């Protein structure tokens, strides 16, 4: 894998980012230093982690897993996980999918690509979903669709806001049409939650693409994004192949989406929790001063 990475030239500038994210995984304690892929500075892993995995020199947001994000964004000891034991089947008997799932479980230490539950964010109750980039790049199959749907249904039933962090390569090919159906299923759950006057806040992180962008990621009432996150429907490589031209720098990055009017704000990870808490506080029900 490492040698392969070494010889693999990125096909374009956009893909060049975040290639070294593996170094900050918590299960690699021997790595004392990390090279920032953007500013090329050598950083101490410890100081990087203390800085919310944001490069102190240039502000590059390193990719993090779902548990790290939950620790960072919720009040200590308040997170209660739901639906943690749901596992994928191989519904269309796709070749090698069972193996692929096992590998993903080992790589991510998660059972599937999204973690759901309830938590407090600076004292505010919310239902939460956090996707994990280390599980098949956060791709959405039946289990991801089911867990997202359930957390929205739970939040609707309890009149709670939903806070969701997305990171996904899109619908999961290995579950075929059933993955596609999850886009409709999750969208329906978001709609019912919304129709009951509940708040849904999404934070889009790098990368959020394909079927997740084209469903629940873009359906939030308030959409925040991390700086420089790749957000789009079609991936940059596919567009380059179709258009037969190089894409402009910054295309499909958070800043581009903000300019085009598709997200509400770009929020640095270090102030995300405070920002989310402030938005939640402005949506508390039945209280006005």
């Amino acid at each position, binding site marked *: 894998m490492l040698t392969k990475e070494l010889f693999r030239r990125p096909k374009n500038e956009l893909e060049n980012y975040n290639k070294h994210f593996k170094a900050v995984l918590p299960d690699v304690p021997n790595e004392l230093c990390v090279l920032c892929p953007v500013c090329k500075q050598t950083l101490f892993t410890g100081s990087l982690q203390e800085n919310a995995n944001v490069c102190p020199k240039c502000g590059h947001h390193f990719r993090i897993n779902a548990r790290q994000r939950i620790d960072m964004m919720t009040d200590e000891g308040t997170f209660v996980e739901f639906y943690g034991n749901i596992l994928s089947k191989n519904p269309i008997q796709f070749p090698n999918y069972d193996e692929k799932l096992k590998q993903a479980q080992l790589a991510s230490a998660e059972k599937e690509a999204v973690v759901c539950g309830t938590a407090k964010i600076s004292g505010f109750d919310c239902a939460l979903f956090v996707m994990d980039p280390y599980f098949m790049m956060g791709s959405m199959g039946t289990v991801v669709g089911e867990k997202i749907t359930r957390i929205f249904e739970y939040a609707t039933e309890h009149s709670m806001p939903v806070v969701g962090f997305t990171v996904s390569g899109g619908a999961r090919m290995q*579950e075929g*049409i059933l993955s596609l159906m999850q886009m409709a299923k999750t969208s329906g759950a978001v709609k019912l939650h919304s129709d009951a006057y509940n708040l849904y806040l999404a934070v889009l992180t790098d990368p959020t693409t394909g079927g997740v962008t084209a469903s629940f990621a873009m359906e939030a009432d308030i959409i925040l994004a991390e700086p420089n996150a790749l957000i789009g429907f079609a991936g940059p490589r596919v567009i380059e192949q179709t258009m037969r031209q190089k894409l402009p720098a910054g295309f499909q990055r958070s800043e581009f989406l903000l300019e085009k009017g598709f997200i509400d704000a770009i929020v640095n990870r270090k102030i995300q929790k405070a920002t989310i808490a402030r938005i939640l506080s402005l949506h508390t029900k039945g209280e006005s001063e």
Partner: protein
Amino acid sequence: MSAFDKVCAARAKGRPTGMDFINNIFQDFVELHGDRRFGDDKAVVTGIARLNGMPVTVVALEKGHDTKEKVARNFGSAHPEGYRKALRQMQLAEKFGRPVVCFVDTSGAYCGIAAEERGQGQAIAENLMQMMTLEVPVVSILIGEGGSGGALALAVADEVWMLENSVYSVISPEGCASILWKDSKKIKEASECLKLTADDLLQLGVIETIIRESGKDFSKTYQKLNQRLWATLTKNRQLPTKELVTKRYNRFRKFGEIFE
């Protein structure tokens, strides 16, 4: 026929396209253009018509017939404005209590710089969400290719039907082959793996029915569709709105088995 044969049949030259279905199933079709936001996407045809007297809203992805028309219609690959145009018409249908019929035939939503700039993902997402609770009956029919999110954006319906030689898939066989085997030529193998034929999808419970075809003569198919649409739409019009919408939600809610 193998899965790959079905893919070829769905894409075959000379296969009727969206407009042919509209013209042969409905009467008094009036085409209505534009999304009122950006422009008029010719990959999506929308309008109002009569189905044996009953006013209906019709939406179709249209690939075009000859080369000139195909280019003008972007080979049936819609931009965000196409999906927004469809949604605008569906919301008008809701206002006036007309059922909606969608014909799906696309290799996928257009992927390009302009489509991304104008929010392709957001446009599709919006349709999925709004169609789920649309308060009039909706039937979607796959008549050729059902390419991923671009097809689903017009297929959140009370019932989804497929023509015998249509396909519906999360990714194109070419895309699947190039990811799996790094070889886009292994389309045959990929077509099998994806379970994209009408028979597969009926078995998976993703569609309600398969509309049989009889060779190149589609007149019987149109007739059958006219009758089935009439039966389904008149039946669903009788349902209380809440029941109609709940049924649609539960239709999609059930998809996918899991271990728990």
